[in-house]
C-alpha cells in the first residue's frame, strides 16, 4: 500500500492490521515515533493524520493509507516549528523518549487552539506520559509557543 509520509509517497508491504507505528518504525525506518505501551495509553507514538494527533500504536496501517501522515521528522525540516523552538528555550527534555509524542500533541493542540487555556492544555496533553516528570516545563513551553505565535501575527 501507499503511505503519504512527511510529504513523500512511500510504498510499504504490510498486512492491513499492522499498527501504523510498526509500519513507520520497522518498514519505513522512521524511528522518531516511539513505542511506549501499544494500547494508546502513553502517547509516545503520537503522529498527525491529516493534522490531527493520533496514537499510531493502535491505528491499523491500512486506515492511514490515503491520508497525510506527519511524524516528528516531518514537523519542520530543521527543528524550527514554534513548538520545537519553545521546547528548546524552556529546556524541557530529560531522557527525551516521550518528547516526540509530547511535541506532536502540543503542535496539534496549537494548530486547533492557538491560545489554549491551562485546562485545555491539561486536557490535550493528558494522553502523553512522561516518566522523567517534565510536565511542568511542557506546560510552560506550550504557553511560550502560543505567545510566540501571537507575537508573529
Amino acid at each position: 500500500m501507499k503511505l503519504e509520509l512527511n510529504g513523500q509517497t512511500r510504498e510499504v508491504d504490510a498486512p492491513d492490521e499492522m499498527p501504523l507505528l510498526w509500519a513507520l518504525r520497522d518498514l519505513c525506518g522512521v524511528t522518531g515515533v516511539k513505542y511506549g505501551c501499544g494500547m494508546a495509553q502513553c502517547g509516545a507514538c503520537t503522529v498527525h493524520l491529516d493534522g490531527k494527533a493520533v496514537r499510531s500504536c493502535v491505528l491499523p496501517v491500512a486506515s492511514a493509507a490515503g491520508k497525510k501522515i506527519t511524524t516528528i521528522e516531518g514537523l519542520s525540516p530543521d527543528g524550527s516549528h514554534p513548538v520545537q523552538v519553545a521546547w528548546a528555550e524552556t529546556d524541557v527534555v530529560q531522557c527525551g523518549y516521550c518528547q516526540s509524542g509530547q511535541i506532536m500533541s502540543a503542535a496539534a493542540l496549537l494548530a486547533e487552539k492557538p491560545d489554549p487555556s491551562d485546562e485545555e492544555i491539561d486536557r490535550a496533553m493528558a494522553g502523553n506520559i512522561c516518566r522523567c516528570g517534565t510536565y511542568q516545563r511542557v506546560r510552560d513551553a506550550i504557553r511560550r509557543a502560543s505567545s510566540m505565535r501571537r507575537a508573529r501575527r
Partner: protein
Amino acid sequence: MTLSRRDVLVSGAGLLIAFHVPGKGRAAQMDKKPSVDPNAFVRVAPDESVTVLLAHSEMGQGIWTTLAMLIAEELDCDWSKIRVEHAPAAPAYAHTAYGLQMTGGSTTTWSEFDRYRIVGAMARAMLLRAAAERWKVRPRSLRTESGFVVHRTEQLSYGQLAEAAQRLSPPASVELKPKKDWKLIGKPMRRLDTPEKITGKAQFGIDVQVPAMRTALVARSPVFGGKVKSFDASKARAVPGVEQVVQVPSGIAVVATNFWSAKLGRDALQIDWDLGAGAELDTGKLLASYRELAKAPGTLAAAKGDADAALVGAARRLEAEYDVPYLAHATMEPLNCTVRLEGGRCEIWTGTQFHGVDQMAAAQVAGVPPQNVIIHTPFLGGGFGRRATLDSHFVAEGVHVAKAAGVPVKVVWTREDDIRGGHYRPMYVHRIEAGVDEKGLPQAWRHTVVGQSILTGTLFEKFAVKDGVDAQSVEGAADSPYLDAVAARKITLHSPRNQVPPQWWRSVGNSHTAFAVESMIDELAWAARRDPLEFRGALLADKPRHLRALEAAATSAGWGTAPPEGRARGLAVHDSFGSIVAEVAEVSVDARKRIRVHKVSCAVDCGQVVNPLGIEAQVQGAVVFGLSAALLGAVTLKEGRVEQSNFHDYRVLRMPEVPDVTVQILESDAKMGGIGEPATAPIAPAVANAVYALTRQRLRSLPLRLT
C-alpha cells in the same frame, strides 16, 4: 585470558566501602586521584570541534551537559563547538569511587567533578604548549580565550593546534581554576542534547538498526522462577515474518523480520511451564507475613543506649506501622538489547547503566574475552535504576538469543513484559515504637524494618552486606538525622527472601525509609500538639543544613499562613545521596476522596552547584516520580501472577494531576551531593502529613488512599 567475575570484583576494590555505606564511604575513595588519560575523555579536532566522552550514561539526568561544562570550564573552549558522545565500555571509564563503569546512586557529577576538570585543564595545557612551540615563546606568556590561544595580537585556534598538541605527552600535574574565576560552573546552562531530542533524531536503544538484524520477543515465565517444561511453536512459525523460534534460559524467543510479526508469533506460542514455588506468591499474604515478622526485632543494624528499657520507662509510648508495595520503574523506553556476534567479538547496543557488569556477563555468555565485548550506548529512555541490573539479565538474554538464532538480533520488551518483569522496588514494612518525654520529644526509638535485600545473593553481597544487614535496606532509617537527638534507639532488619527479583529504584532504600521516619516524626509532633515545623526544628537543632532547607521550603510554601480553603500543608525533610531536600506539599481532597496535590515547595542543599537549570529539572522530575508512587503506584501478585500489565492499571501521574513544583537551590560549602534521586523520597511523607493535617486521617500505607 578470560577474566572471571570474581577476579574483576577483587581488583575493583573500590566497590568495597562505597557500596556498603552509600554516600559515606566515598571520602576515602576520592583521596586517591585516578591517573587520567585526557585522550580517553576529550578530543579536540582540526575542525574546531571539541568532543567530550561520557564515562556514564545519559538517561535524562542531564550529565550530557553537566560533564561537558566541567571540561569546558577548564579547557576554555567555545561552548557552541562542544559535541558529546557516550564512551565505550573500558577500564579507563571506571567510576572514580566504585572502580567499575556504571551510572547510578546520584553519583555522576560529584564523582567526576575533579576528573573532568582535570581533563579539561590537561588538554588546555597541551594546546598552550603546542602554541608556545609554534611561536617559540614560553607557555606562561600565553593565554586562552574561548577556543583560541592568544599571544599579544596573534592567535591560533584550538583546531589549528589540535594535531601538534596531540603529539605532546599529557602534563604530570595541572592547576585547576579557583572558584572565583569560573565562567560556566554554577550558571544555568541549557541542555546540549535538546536539538536531537526535539526532532526525533536522537537514537535510543530501541531505534538501533544493524545490517541483517532481526527483532525478537521472548516469552518469559508468567511467574517468577518458572521454567519451560515443553513448548509447541508450530503456530508461531506460521506467522508471516517469523523466521525462528529458539529456546534460551529465560524462555522462548520468537525471531522475526519486525516487531509486529514477533509479537503475533509470541502470542501464538503454546508453552507448558514448570512454575515452581513462585506460583504461591500473593502480595496480600506476603504483607501479612511481613507484619508478623515486624513484631519481633530482626538483625541489629544500628543502636545506641538501651532502647528496650527506655521504651518501658517513657512517659508516653506511640507506635505505628507503615508499608509500601512493589513498584515497577516503567521507563518510557521498554528494555531492549541488540547483539551481533561476529569474528570472536560480541557487539552490543543497549541503554545500560551498568557497563562494567554487563560486559563481564556478555563475555561469559558469548564465550569471548571481556575486551572483545563492545558496548555501544545510545540514549537511555529513562533509567531510574532499571537498567543497572545486578544479574545483567536483559543483556545476557540478548546475547543468548543472538547466539541461538545465529543472526544479529534486537530483543525488545513490551510494556507488559516490563510491568510484569520483576526487578521491582521491593515491598517493605516498617514498625516504629517511640517513647516520648513530657514535651513530646522522643527519648526512645525502636524501629524494625522488613523487606527483601537487593544485594543479598548478588555479586556484591560480600562487599555490601555486613553482619546480615544490607545497608541499603535501612539507609535513611538507621542513620536518620532525627535520631541524634534520641538518647536510646535500636534499628533492626528482617530480610525475607522470595522469588521476586528486587532492584534499585530511584532513591532506593530512602523510597520507603523516608516515608516511615518522616510520617512517624509527624505523628509525634501532632501527639505533642506542636507545630510540625517547630517540632522538627527542636529535633534538628544542631543540624544547620537541615534547618535551613526546612525553613526555606516552609517560607516559600507560606507555612504558618492559612492555606486556601479546603487545603492543608505537610512537610518532610530527608538526607540522602549526600544532599538534603525539604518539601512542603499543599493538598486537597475531592468529593470522591481522591487526594490532589496542588503545590510542592522544595528546598535543596546539594553542596556545590554545577547547573542550576538541571538541578531544578531533576528535583521537579523526582517529585513527580515520587508522587506517582505515593498516589498511584503498586505492583501486586496473586497466585504468582503480576496483576498489572500496562499504564491503564499501573498508573503514573498525567499532566492534569501534576502540581506546580518550585525549587530553591541552597548552595553551600558542604561536600557535593547527588541530585537525580534525593527529591524522590520526601514527597510521599510530605503528602501523607498534609492529608493528616486536612482530614485527621493518618495514612500509613502507600499508595495513599483515603477511606
